[in-house]
């Protein structure tokens, strides 16, 4: 396993000096690399980054997000994606190339308040994020419970190689869709499994910084010990 040096940092902390590559949430001043947020710093393969513990979701191209329709314009839907930017889904993405604002009615497909799983197709600082639903498993979400967790804890909910989410899904038979923006939709046939899955997701959100979390989630869900041994606690 790679040697990764981790440390708790706050804004202004010097993480390292020397010829290293600054990555996320750090900046370089002279030869010092300084953190810009509260989080955990990592030094690996000559690169330095900080995993933030707080903050809003900043869209990245290819992220899967869950959005809520908040409005329509003649050619697109506007989405709340739990970020400081509004997501745009062009009408052609849903209706196809021959979409015409005079013929088709946007609200027939997606109405205000609908939840949609989408992918960020493009985002840069000059424009608001452009979404797409043209992929497998994307599109309108018909049923389920929406849970709002901190975007910085999404990786913990997924776990290493999806271990955490698999544990929860297998134990409760729920379907969980995780948006990188911190919105999670849980759906399940039986209500008991649904409640348990929601509880597990909220537990991960609250206890994301504690060790042995997978084990604790398992014991909460009543999964017998020793199953799924390849899950790793870090």
């Amino acid at each position: 396993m790679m040697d990764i040096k981790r440390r708790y940092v706050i804004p202004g902390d010097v993480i390292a000096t020397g010829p290293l590559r600054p990555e996320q949430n750090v900046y370089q001043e002279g030869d010092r690399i300084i953190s810009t947020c509260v989080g955990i710093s990592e030094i690996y393969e000559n690169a330095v980054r900080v995993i933030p513990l707080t903050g809003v979701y900043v869209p990245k191209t290819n992220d899967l997000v869950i959005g809520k329709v908040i409005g329509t314009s003649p050619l697109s839907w506007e989405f709340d994606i739990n970020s400081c930017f509004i997501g745009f889904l062009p009408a052609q993405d849903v209706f196809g190339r021959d979409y015409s604002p005079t013929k088709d009615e946007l609200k027939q497909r997606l109405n205000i308040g609908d939840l949609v799983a989408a992918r960020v197709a493009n985002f840069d600082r000059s424009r608001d994020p452009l979404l797409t639903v043209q992929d497998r498993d994307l599109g309108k979400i018909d049923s389920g419970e929406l849970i709002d967790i901190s975007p910085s804890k999404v990786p913990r909910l997924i776990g290493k190689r999806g271990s955490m989410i698999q544990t929860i899904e297998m134990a409760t038979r729920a379907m969980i869709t995780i948006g990188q923006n911190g919105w999670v939709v849980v759906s399940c046939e039986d209500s008991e499994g649904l409640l348990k899955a929601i509880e597990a997701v909220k537990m991960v959100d609250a206890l994301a910084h504690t060790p042995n979390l997978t084990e604790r989630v398992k014991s909460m869900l009543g999964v017998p010990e020793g199953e799924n041994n390849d899950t790793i606690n870090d």
Partner: protein
Amino acid sequence: MTEDGIRCDGRRVDQLRNISIKVGVLKNADGSAYIEFGKNKILAGVFGPRDVHPKHMANQDTGILRCRYHMSPFSVTERKNPAPSRREIEISKVLKEALEPALILKDFPRTVIDVFVEVLQADGGSRCAALDAAAVALADAGIPMRDLVSACAAGKVADRIVLDVNNEEDQEGQADMPVAIMPSIGKVTLMQLDGILTPEEYKTCLQTAIGGCRTVYEIQRKALVEKYFESGAQ
């Protein structure tokens, strides 16, 4: 002040008042902090980055920062009119200009970061205390910062340079100099001077204030570490 340099509230000339900071005290704000700086009691709340309203204020190239410093009607001995006074408008501007260099607003074009500072009880040096709270609240909100901002005042009372002037000393004293710095980078973001100092006195006063800022920084740091890192072991 007595002969051996003991001040009206029992402090030495180079001694700060008692400071305590609590992070994340407001649930509805994205980031918040509460500071007790001697008898000053100040709340700071941060919202954003979020959409700019009114829209014409938005900047396509960068985010903007807005600050509001407000004193509660009950913060002083005689009721203060809650409408923003000339002094409050000035301090709002001063806070904004002192915080701006520390923030990396370029990351969030077309958005705004709102900082609200409410003085619940005032006892001299409230602009410095407000800055300390606002900086911690900004870090709590996860807004990318080059460094924290630490502020502290120094002044001249009874012909001596003293650290952290309180209300009584401010009224009777000869000079008051609030200073804010970015401690890790070593840059000054605020320096005001009210009163007359000789060039030598000016230098000592500035150095005294910067020394105070560094002490404040340690307290800010401790407050953040306490909230984010002490609840769980790494």
